[in-house]
């Protein structure tokens, strides 16, 4: 039975987000997940990059680290490897995670480092006032794309599945209860857990109504260990499926692998190392 409540994870800092921003729901859901799992505040680290959603750690009273643009995954990896006992969560937006920081996702996935990575995807650059992002729909006209974008949008779920991330899920800011459940599963997953949150930007690309219309839960008979089945669901464009696409808990996580190596190696002292370099 949990002794902690969601509000126990809240800091005194008022979020900078616009009223109605999808990120409020994400913040509430993560605090509820922490509370449900009864994790002490001082054993949690939330690492983020740059952007509206990356301001996240300031609104929590856990440990937080607000780093440079696009690098929450390397930051979180270093923290987790330094102290595997901690609950380390990486958060950020679609620009931070899929554009400038996109190169780190495959490596977090192949390391299978025990980190949930929550990407608040609003398909737009909010903090710099509305430029197209890697997940913006094609043809979107903004100040930096006055003739309409000609790039196809990225499919984050397909990307994470292609890298064989061991946990891949999508949720929506409009579905708080489901989001809490997915966050809890991601935090408990013994490897890299990729979570895309459809989190609309009310100021520059309000997609609430659109998402309510086209999202649907992943069919109950989906087998989350079937990678190809997960990819088929991820490829659906008429319907955006919400839920857990993939979950493979059998592959040991990165910090555990290193702990195994450490315990198999005979401990040494500095003088013993030096003796190996005797002339």
């Amino acid at each position: 039975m949990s002794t902690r409540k969601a509000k126990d994870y809240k800091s005194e800092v008022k979020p900078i987000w616009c009223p109605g921003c999808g990120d409020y729901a994400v913040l509430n859901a993560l605090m509820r997940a922490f509370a449900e799992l009864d994790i002490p505040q001082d054993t949690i680290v939330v690492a983020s990059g740059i952007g509206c959603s990356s301001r996240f750690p300031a609104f929590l009273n856990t440990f937080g680290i607000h780093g440079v643009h696009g690098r929450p995954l390397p930051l979180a990896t270093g923290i987790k490897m330094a102290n595997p006992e901690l609950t380390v969560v990486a958060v950020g937006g679609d620009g931070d995670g899929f554009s400038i920081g996109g190169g780190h996702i495959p490596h977090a996935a192949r390391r299978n480092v025990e980190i949930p990575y929550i990407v608040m995807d609003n398909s737009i650059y909010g903090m710099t006032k509305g430029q197209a992002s890697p997940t913006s729909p094609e043809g979107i006209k903004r100040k930096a794309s006055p003739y309409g974008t000609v790039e196809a949008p990225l499919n984050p779920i397909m990307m994470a599945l292609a890298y064989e991330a061991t946990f891949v899920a999508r949720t929506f800011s409009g579905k708080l209860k489901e989001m809490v459940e997915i966050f809890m599963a991601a935090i408990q997953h013994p490897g890299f857990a990729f979570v895309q949150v459809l989190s609309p930007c009310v100021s520059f690309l309000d997609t609430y109504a659109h998402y309510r219309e086209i999202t649907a839960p992943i069919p109950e008979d989906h087998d989350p260990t079937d990678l190809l089945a997960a990819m088929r669901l991820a490829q659906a464009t008429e319907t955006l499926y919400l839920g857990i696409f993939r979950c493979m808990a059998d592959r040991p996580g990165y910090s555990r692998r290193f702990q195994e190596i450490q315990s198999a190696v005979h401990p040494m002292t500095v003088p013993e190392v030096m003796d190996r370099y005797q002339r």
Partner: protein
Amino acid sequence: MVKRDQTVVVRVGGEAGEGTVTLGELFTRIAARAGLEVYTFRTYPAEIKGGQVLFQTRLGVKRVLSEGDAADVLVVMNKPGWTENQRDLQPRGVLVYDPGAVSDPDTQGRAQFAIPAGVIAQELDFARGKNVVMVGALTWLFRLGLDLGRDIVNARMARHGDVLQQNLKALEAGYAYAEAHYPAPFPYALPLPEQFEERLLLSGAEALALGALDGGCRFYSGYPITPATGVMEALAKYLPAFGGTMVQAEDEIAAINMVIGASFAGRRSMTATSGPGLSLMIEALGMASIAEIPIVVVNVQRAGPSTGLPTKTSQGDLFLTLYGGHGDAPRFVLAPDSVKDCYYQMINAFSLAEYYQMPVIVLSDQAMASRVETMPYPESSCGIWSECLERQLPSEAELAKDYRRYRDTKDGISSMAIPGMTGGAYLSESLEHDVYGYPSQTPENHQLMMEKRSKKVEAARRRLAKWDSSARRWGHRGAKFGIIGWGSTRGAVREAMVQLGEMGIEIEAIYPHTLLPMPDRAVMEFIYGKKAILVPELNFSSQFARMISHRYYKQLDAQDIHVHMLAKEQGIPFKISEIYEAALEMVLEEGGK
């Protein structure tokens, strides 16, 4: 014919990928095991196979200070090995060569020692063992003892069980051939000491890695880059035995961010890289500065700009390390000046990083990282030239109530809570932040925090003034002429100064070990009363001389002290003669001694 200083320069020239470096290394190890002091230098092409390799080892009865200039003994394994190096063979030097590779070399009267290494190796049905045949021949010529040779080959090749026996046979065959054909004493065989102290035989990269372990490093993340990879490889081997972790990152940006994360979580953490990698790390370095996270970054400099000359040496990154990055981001920069110093400066680097919660850059270079030197066992793990400094953690009282991570203090140092500490939760911010770590943009707060962070540099400057290691000064105390340098050029400067002394020229030198903060008092005391100072450095634009001229312009102007720049950017170290000649020129220009 051994010189008065009882050192011998042996240079090996051969094809890359044909065991030329192995030849040089085996011979160096045998000589070191026999009790000689050694100091190597190598230059190699960027390609793994093909191209010309030069391996130089200088042997001495006493400690060797630099790789030396002209070769006393030239060992050539292929034709370019002769044609490219013959001009560097001193007039009374000797040539040891494989007649199968070079026929009838014109040594202009200098002694020749022909060792048909290729033919001997083929007779053993082990053609690629010709380098070890040559090692055997050199072992005889230098009278190092066949048993020592066998020991070294055994130790070195033990992993390669199948070829170990073949290599031992090659060694013995080379030894036997040389013994039969050249029984007369070899002119460059050094007297072997009967008793000698135990020594470590370390490359600069290994010394950096071992110093890091001794300095408490328990997390490393890096990306392979020439010539810094040796640091990563050594730490990859040993860190797990210390409960530590080495992560090979996907790029340098990830590497430094992992290091920041690991340090934030309480581990002493570092990375090592070279110019292009450091350029990529600069943004995160600024973050470590503003968020006050201790990290150590080793920069093994190579010649630039851009991809430049990846396998060649340079000191061209001074300005990048001192000033690189946007905004004013305080950091420390250390400059070890020998392989031994690399070891100690890494301990200092961790002490400074942890205590002052700042990024520390340690500047090495290709020449110093890839060379091997004999050095005494470090006397104790910490506190020889410095103090053992630790990260300041919050007290129980601080944690009990209203913990302020970035509290302003007299010296700017505020206690740093570690994730897991009850009551310690705080936000580590790359944005300007208030005392709690929460973002704050007010002019007053920004000013306060800029001052807090820079106060740490001034506090460190005061502390460092008490450390012997902050600057090394030697030579004729109070001489009218001086040399100010940094890093790996020190060996050549030391030897040039000995030669200048023999000419009756009084000169002294200072090598700061911390370039940021500069040991101002030591440098100002040094330049006081000088007529002129020479600033030798391995870069194109005289970066250090410009920094010295700018930083001490008042003293230099007031006393009319002239700064003579000696810049060299060719990818290779200074020759002793280049320093000697520049110093002599300075003395003559300034109206004599």
